[in-house]
């Protein structure tokens, strides 16, 4: 069994994941899930993000694992290879995913960091096209990657193989516009499984809520749901929002299609869009655009809102940054 899983993990960690992402992407397009929102600018940004960062990151990680660490701590190479597989698996899974939770959460809660993560949230759609979309500096400083390289050097390479495969699978499917978790909420018999699943790992419902263009409307919640592989961190730290529903709109309410190169390389390159967070004198965090209330013809005294993407300005805290 373990050999079988090992073969699958090795294949996935090789060319398996790019192939899976391409296949899922084609399926999403065939089902029309991008709804003509994949404009030329978004297209270039998504494709460059998919190809370029891994090419830049690979030599850096290789240098760290093959040159730098053997030079500074040669005596610790494989020093912990005695750690039993199951414990190694948990140590790596927690170290990697909890570190990514913090990296992600701090980019939302510390205003200065938000613009490095904004590129991932600006996509007005969910799916394989935007799953790898990131500012290059954000990708480059992915803290958990370096931590994992160190743990692999110390001798936890074998369990790391499995963790990486499992994590990429969960994160990829959580970003997908194919809502694979829907049947778990629909059929009563599956509700207990859904209850465990949505608290343990990231699902389309919880992760789509994080990518919603609105928050605090009962569905969208970009102030939380920061978990990548495990959603459990959000449950433990009180940043979770579970609604079993999917947002009506994704992205950033004030997004005006900043140039792909600015989104990829901010702060080296700036956006030409006036007032954008990525523009030369743009704010670090721009406030959400609030939908205008429209008066219902039936009762003019009770204003209704056009969409479910309302966020009260009273609830707008400085930490509400995307």
């Amino acid at each position: 069994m373990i050999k079988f899983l090992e073969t699958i993990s090795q294949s996935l960690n090789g060319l398996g994941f790019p192939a899976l992402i391409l296949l899922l992407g084609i399926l999403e397009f065939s089902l029309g899930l991008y709804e003509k929102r994949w404009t030329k600018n978004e297209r270039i940004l998504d494709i460059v993000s998919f190809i370029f960062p891994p090419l830049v990151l690979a030599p850096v990680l290789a240098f760290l694992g093959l040159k730098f660490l053997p030079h500074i701590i040669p005596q610790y190479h494989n020093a912990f290879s005695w750690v039993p597989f199951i414990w190694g698996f948990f140590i790596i899974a927690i170290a990697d995913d909890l570190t990514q939770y913090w990296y992600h959460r701090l980019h939302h809660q510390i205003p200065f960091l938000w613009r490095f993560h904004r590129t991932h949230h600006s996509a007005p759609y969910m799916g394989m096209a935007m799953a790898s979309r990131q500012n290059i500096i954000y990708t480059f400083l992915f803290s958990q990657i370096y931590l994992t390289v160190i743990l692999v050097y110390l001798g936890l390479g074998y369990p790391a193989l499995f963790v990486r495969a499992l994590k990429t699978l969960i994160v990829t499917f959580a970003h997908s516009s194919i809502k694979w978790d829907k049947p778990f909420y629909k059929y009563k018999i599956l509700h207990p499984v859904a209850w465990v699943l949505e608290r343990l790992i990231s699902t389309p419902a919880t992760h789509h809520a994080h990518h919603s263009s609105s928050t605090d409307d009962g569905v969208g919640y970009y102030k939380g749901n920061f978990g990548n592989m495990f959603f459990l961190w959000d449950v433990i730290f009180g940043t979770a929002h579970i609604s079993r529903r999917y947002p009506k709109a994704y992205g950033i309410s004030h997004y005006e299609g900043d140039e792909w190169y600015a989104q990829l390389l901010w702060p080296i390159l700036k956006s030409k869009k006036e007032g954008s967070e990525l523009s030369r004198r743009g704010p670090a965090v721009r406030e959400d655009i609030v939908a205008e209330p429209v008066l219902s013809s039936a009762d003019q005294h009770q204003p209704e809102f056009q969409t479910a993407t309302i966020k009260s300005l009273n609830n707008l805290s400085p930490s509400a940054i995307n």
Partner: protein
Amino acid sequence: MKIDPQTQKSILRNALLSVFIYLLPIGLMFGSFYITGKRPWKQQQRTTSINKNINPINKKP
């Protein structure tokens, strides 16, 4: 724009809890070794020293 004190407080509180979570699998692992009496690191030391005796290339000058 500054980070609000409420968020600051929750970050600090949760960071402390995270340290405990990071250490939890390591603590549980050693707990299981204590209960079962297993000492896998000693086994590795023995294997390493046997390898060094068999293969003189591994011997330190």
